[in-house]
């Protein structure tokens, strides 16, 4: 009975989403306030229904209701409670339900925090989001219903894929989806602005905090996915350029470009039609990612059970959403006038450089991801494009990006003076060139060209951030006063940029200085790697709620002093008969020690894989900095200030001087 109620709520949510898409849109076109105001109540109603529906599915998992097909396929009576809850989004149907619920949560957030926006704008934004939500909810209802029943109900469930029984996988999908659907807000603002013909600084300012928050979620989601791959797959790798990873990385790259382009649109009232296009692209790439993952047109390790009817449905959804928005763009964007002119040497130029490099990077990765599909469609054969291609095209684009990234914040809007910039930047140049060689050499005692490049651009970036801070506060009466007088958005930007430097250091050092050893170890055997002594102490049998396992115990010492004991496991999940390796990791800020156990080799010997991975944590630490920077930037005072004024146009000038 309860699952039917959940299904009913889902259908009702779909109908309300459709109404939310149509009624306020007409209201905005005809100027009927009550029709426009309907958008807010519809958003609330839709969210309540979807939360209810989601709650019922969760309840079915918690209470082992195996008559629900989705529960039977993704749970088991031995599955612990925490994984029963996360199993709600462990498969195709439930993850889509989570998707639509989060989408309506964003709608409701817009309804809640838009009190000072013109009603017409709110109505259009929520209508666009309502239409997208209606599309996705109908996708769930008609092709991927999580409430379908099995009759007769099976005695027990088939269990959740063991790879997904893990903390990282509990939090990774919700974060990623929050990012994906979050870009629908920026998209809806762009479409609403195009329709309303008010593509102005106020529009850019309204979009910015939403875009930044969506970007923060996406950043965290991608970082979590990478971290999960690192410790769970047992390979010690953290990025594979898999089509599904690319599907999340593409909107991130365009979203990053969008954030920066929105800054130009807000401050200088230029780049506007380009910014709108980026907003459309960012969300389109989220939809494209969904299509690629769920339709089975590409092979990937993340394969969801693919089904041609689902592929057709999402393709139609993608075609309608993106097609219509690009038609609106082609129709309305030519009327947009860009106001500001800028000189060749100006902050606008550097931000343009940022945009061009990010969009080119997106295009090359998209090309690599789709290339197998293109060749296949043209009957030219089947191929797969792997990391060598992606590394070869992506890294050379990121190097100039980071150089520009350092200069951008130091440069002036509209026109800058080469002499002035050169005078500031020469310090950064000298410091980065010297330390870029010395630092890795002192740490590791050997060099590689790419290591020097990576270290140099990272230090360059850090030096530029510090110089920026210094030049901003040096005229203030005191150091402290200088620090506190800077707006939050400045600290947000600097932290996020610092995060980029940290991640680049992590990637560079891990890629070039990791040590790896595969060997047979019997109890008592020792291995020295990266200055650490690993001793295999033996194995122990263990068992969890739904698996049996063999635990390998390795004690680590350095210069005779104990560092710790590491446990690696070979688990066998009893229901799915799937062996899993749990890596033992001793994490550290400057190095990870990583041990993964293989098969028994007889005579008490085991295959062991031992890694020493310097600075690998920095990859994710940098992402945390970026995300935290984003949060600071989005909570800047002027967005709240803006909320208190109606259109916010009159404070442009005041804030522009304060900001730059």
């Amino acid at each position, binding site marked *: 009975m309860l699952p039917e109620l959940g299904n009913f709520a889902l259908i009702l949510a779909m109908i309300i989403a459709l109404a939310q898409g149509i009624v306020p849109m007409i209201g905005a076109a005809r100027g009927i306030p009550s029709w426009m105001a309907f958008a807010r109540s519809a958003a609330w109603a839709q969210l309540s229904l979807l939360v209810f529906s989601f709650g019922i599915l969760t309840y079915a998992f918690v209470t082992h209701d195996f008559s629900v097909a989705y529960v039977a396929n993704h749970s088991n009576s031995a599955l612990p409670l925490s994984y029963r809850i996360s199993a709600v989004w462990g498969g195709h149907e439930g993850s889509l339900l989570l998707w639509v619920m989060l989408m309506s949560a964003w709608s409701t957030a817009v309804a809640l925090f838009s009190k000072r926006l013109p009603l017409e704008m709110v109505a259009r934004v929520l209508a666009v989001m309502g239409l997208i939500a209606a599309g996705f909810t109908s996708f769930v209802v008609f092709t991927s219903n999580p409430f379908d029943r099995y009759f007769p109900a099976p005695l027990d469930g088939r269990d959740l894929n063991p790879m997904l029984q893990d903390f990282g996988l509990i939090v990774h999908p919700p974060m990623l989806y929050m990012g994906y659907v979050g870009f629908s807000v920026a998209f809806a603002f762009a479409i609403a602005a195009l329709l309303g013909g008010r593509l102005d600084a106020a529009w850019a300012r309204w979009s910015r905090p939403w875009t930044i928050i969506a970007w923060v979620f996406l950043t965290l989601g991608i970082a979590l996915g990478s971290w999960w791959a690192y410790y769970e797959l047992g390979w010690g790798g953290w990025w594979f350029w898999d089509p599904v990873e690319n599907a999340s990385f593409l909107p991130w790259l365009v979203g990053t470009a969008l954030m920066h382009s929105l800054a130009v649109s807000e401050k200088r009232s230029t780049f506007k039609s380009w910014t709108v296009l980026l907003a459309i692209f960012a969300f389109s790439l989220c939809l494209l990612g969904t299509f690629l993952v769920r339709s089975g*047109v590409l092979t990937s*390790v993340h394969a969801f059970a693919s089904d041609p009817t689902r592929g057709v449905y999402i*393709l139609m959804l*993608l075609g309608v959403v993106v*097609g219509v928005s690009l038609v609106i763009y082609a129709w309305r964007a030519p009327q947009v006038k860009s106001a500001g002119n800028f000189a060749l040497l100006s902050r606008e130029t550097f931000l343009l450089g940022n945009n061009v490099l990010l969009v080119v990077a997106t295009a090359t990765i998209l090309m690599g991801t789709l290339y*197998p599909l293109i060749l296949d469609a043209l009957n030219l054969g089947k191929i797969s494009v792997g990391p060598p291609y992606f590394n070869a095209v992506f890294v050379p684009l990121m190097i100039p990006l980071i150089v520009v990234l350092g200069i951008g914040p130091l440069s002036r809007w509209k026109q800058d003076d080469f002499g002035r910039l050169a005078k500031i930047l020469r310090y950064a140049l000298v410091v980065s060139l010297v330390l870029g060689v010395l630092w890795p050499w002192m740490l590791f005692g050997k060099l590689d060209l790419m290591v020097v490049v990576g270290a140099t651009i990272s230090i360059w970036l850090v030096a530029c951030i510090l110089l920026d801070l210094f030049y901003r506060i040096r005229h203030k009466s005191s150091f402290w006063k200088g620090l506190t007088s800077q707006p939050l958005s400045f600290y947000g930007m600097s932290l996020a940029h610092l995060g980029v430097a940290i991640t680049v250091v992590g990637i560079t050092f891990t890629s070039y200085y990791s040590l790896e050893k595969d060997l047979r170890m019997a109890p008592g055997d020792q291995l020295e790697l990266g200055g650490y002594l690993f001793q295999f102490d033996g194995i122990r049998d263990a068992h969890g709620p739904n698996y049996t396992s063999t635990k390998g115990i390795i004690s680590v010492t350095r210069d005779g002093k104990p560092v710790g004991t590491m446990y690696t496991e070979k688990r066998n999940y009893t229901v799915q008969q799937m062996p899993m390796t749990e890596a033992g990791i001793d994490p550290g800020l400057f190095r990870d020690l990583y041990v*993964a156990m293989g*098969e028994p080799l007889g005579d008490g010997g085991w295959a062991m894989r031992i890694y020493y991975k310097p600075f690998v944590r920095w990859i994710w630490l940098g992402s945390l900095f970026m995300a935290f920077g984003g949060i600071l930037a989005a909570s800047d005072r002027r967005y709240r200030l803006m909320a208190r004024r109606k259109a916010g146009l009159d404070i442009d000038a005041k804030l522009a001087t304060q900001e730059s």
Partner: protein
Amino acid sequence: MKARFLVPLILFLLLIGLFVAGLKLDPRKVPSPLIDKPAPQFSLPGLLDKEKIIDTAELTKHKVSLFNVWATWCVACRQEHPFLMALARAGDVPIYGLNYKDKREDAIRWLNQYGNPYVANAFDEDGRVGIEWGVYGTPETFVIDSKGIVRYKQIGPLTEQVWQETILPLINEIRAEEG
């Protein structure tokens, strides 16, 4: 309406056309000219034991056998591996491997780490045998009968579904033919 504002729309329509075409294709299905033809002859050193030569005759010693093309650099092979292990444990059909364009020590390490489902592995370092067998990407699995005829080719990982729906019925059919 200025033409340049239509560029994104046109590019997008091309992309949609590509996807429509893509949906009709199964990335795992590649017509192989080898189906119902004799398996290409090869003779390669073994992976674990360099001295032992693995050749086409070796594959045809059984009523039916699987010939699985894999490599350590292939992520999908990692995904497929547990299923091969399960098949090997069931012991119903012998699985031979072609370790394709790989490093010997990497491949041995892989087998030690994740288990060895293979009766024997041929080591195809430069990929020449793979080319003769028409290997596009890894993993691929051929079903070979005792007369050395290629009966089926699976592109992409073997899964429970493919096994139950396609390969197992075929194997039963081959066994029935051979009595």
